């Protein structure tokens, strides 16, 4: 391992952190109210939106799970990126759901649902969004800490310290500047992250070569390395479930639609979607190729010190990519890569903290607020919520490590809310017969089924855990179908006057 150089790499990382923090803290002076804090005053334009969306949707967590998919499935692991890009392009071109959402002028998805299904559904939707989102985000900090420790060759006992420092840096500017700081720092982070990704990819190609990548993938996965439908661990059920997950993610994932809500108008929001769509291919394919390179470069000898230090022996596929980067990147470039990954991670964490915090303030706590609150009080509440999410992230990350591969955990926890929110969103915009009973039934089914799956996987019964892992995709597809059925059946059991779209 070449290792992190304190004379060459540390100044690069330090300079990046200094500039980002300064920019993030500078714009806090423009925050005058809750709308500025949560949605940057709805003044975001197309190119800033593209940079922000791309930076938010690419964190260390993305890099780690996409590389793990490349390690486990070869090039087929990147099919998720293609599915995601197609969904995003379709939504951007047609304006399906996202146009009525932006035109409604709401702050969050549950706020839109209130107009159609009433305040109780708004509250319930807020709860499942936060439940799924925080379960999902809970692993971000640990995985980022693991990446930095492994890539830099730091003492593994410093994992907790690394996690805490990372969190404090992100929380500082997010707390003060909200979405404005997030947008400005996202822009800087997008540029640094992109340069880092390009340089590392060229180095990986130089070191392993395209033919080396292809032969490694074929040696480990056969033809399944190139075709997800014939890969023994993938198949049509896996692809179909991932298509549903990717479509619902770009349609309802709060951090993604926050860019539509922060856009100047619905046309700008659609342009951001259309023009960012291809980025979602890059987001999966580039790290997947790094994962295949790790398959070629990392041996049992490289894993030995990591496992001796107490890292989970069942997660070699996850650890391989950072170990490989630590091996091949020379001093100076390692610093650039660390700065790029920090950029990617800080933009993701800040945006996630802000958007889940926004849902807690706007939708879950709203019924408990008595009388109108001043903008100052609203800002204080939002900042306290963001700080509380930061503390939760640290505690959850220290305590919990998901079983199975990282992406599967994220897909299942995301399904807790994406399955029902997708159903509600489409019905809210386009089905006049939809009503609150159908919405409540869909939310209940969408939350119970994935949580039951998670419990089976983590309950400690190996037979049950193995069953849950084997049928994860079928269970996921069933969850989406059950939500749609619950919405239709629930709505048709009560006679209500057909209503037009929520706007």
């Amino acid at each position: 391992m070449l290792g992190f150089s304190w004379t060459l790499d540390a100044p690069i990382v330090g300079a990046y952190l200094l500039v980002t923090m300064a920019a993030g803290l500078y714009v806090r002076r423009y925050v005058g109210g809750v709308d500025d804090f949560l949605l940057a005053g709805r003044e975001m334009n197309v190119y800033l939106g593209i940079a922000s969306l791309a930076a938010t949707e690419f964190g260390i967590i993305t890099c780690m799970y996409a590389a793990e998919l490349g390690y486990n499935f070869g090039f087929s692991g990147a099919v998720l990126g293609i599915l995601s890009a197609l969904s995003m392009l379709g939504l951007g071109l047609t304006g399906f759901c996202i146009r009525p959402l932006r035109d409604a002028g709401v702050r969050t998805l549950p706020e839109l649902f209130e107009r159609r299904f009433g305040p109780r559904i708004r509250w319930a939707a807020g709860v499942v969004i936060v439940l799924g989102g925080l379960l999902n985000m809970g692993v971000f900090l640990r995985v980022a800490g693991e990446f930095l420790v492994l890539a830099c060759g730091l003492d593994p006992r410093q994992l907790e310290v690394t996690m805490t420092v990372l969190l404090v840096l992100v929380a500082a500017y997010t707390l003060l500047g909200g979405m404005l700081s997030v947008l400005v720092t996202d822009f800087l982070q997008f540029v640094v992250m992109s340069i880092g990704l390009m340089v590392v990819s060229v180095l990986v190609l130089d070191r392993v070569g395209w033919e080396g990548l292809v032969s490694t993938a074929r040696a480990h996965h056969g033809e399944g390395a190139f075709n997800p439908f014939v890969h023994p661990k993938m198949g049509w059920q896996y692809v179909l479930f991932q298509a549903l997950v990717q479509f619902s993610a770009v349609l309802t994932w709060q951090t993604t639609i926050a860019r539509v809500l922060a856009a100047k108008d619905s046309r700008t929001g659609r342009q951001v979607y259309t023009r960012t769509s291809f980025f979602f291919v890059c987001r999966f394919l580039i790290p997947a190729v790094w994962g295949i390179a790790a398959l070629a470069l990392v041996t049992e000898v490289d894993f030995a010190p990591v496992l001796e230090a107490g890292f989970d022996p069942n997660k070699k596929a996850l650890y391989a990519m950072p170990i490989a980067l630590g091996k091949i990147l020379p001093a100076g470039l390692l610093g650039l890569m660390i700065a790029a990954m920090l950029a990617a991670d800080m933009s993701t964490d800040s945006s996630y903290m802000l958007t889940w915090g926004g849902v807690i303030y706007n939708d879950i706590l709203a019924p408990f607020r008595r009388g109108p609150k001043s903008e100052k009080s609203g800002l204080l509440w939002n900042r306290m919520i963001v700080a509380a999410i930061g503390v939760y992230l640290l505690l959850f990350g220290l305590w919990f490590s998901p079983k199975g591969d990282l992406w599967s955990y994220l897909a299942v926890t995301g399904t807790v809310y994406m399955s029902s929110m997708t159903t509600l969103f489409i019905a809210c915009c386009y089905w006049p017969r939809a009503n609150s009973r159908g919405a409540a039934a869909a939310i209940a089914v969408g939350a119970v089924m994935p949580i039951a799956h998670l419990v089976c996987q983590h309950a400690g019964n190996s037979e049950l855990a193995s069953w849950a892992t084997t049928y994860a995709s079928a269970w996921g597809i069933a969850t989406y179908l059950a939500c749609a059925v619950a919405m239709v059946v629930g709505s048709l059991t009560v006679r209500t006057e057909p209503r037009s779209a929520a706007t």
Partner: protein
Amino acid sequence: MTLELFWRGLFYTCLAWYTCVTLYVAVRGAFDIRTMLRSLSKEGRSEPRDE
């Protein structure tokens, strides 16, 4: 062989697209930030406030 070529073409397209978009967005995004901050200053926040 066809699928190999597909992934190869897609990967190099990603690298080329990413490079072009980064350069373009870096320039246009900077203008967007300037416009956004100006607009926020004008909207009843003519004097940017220190907290």
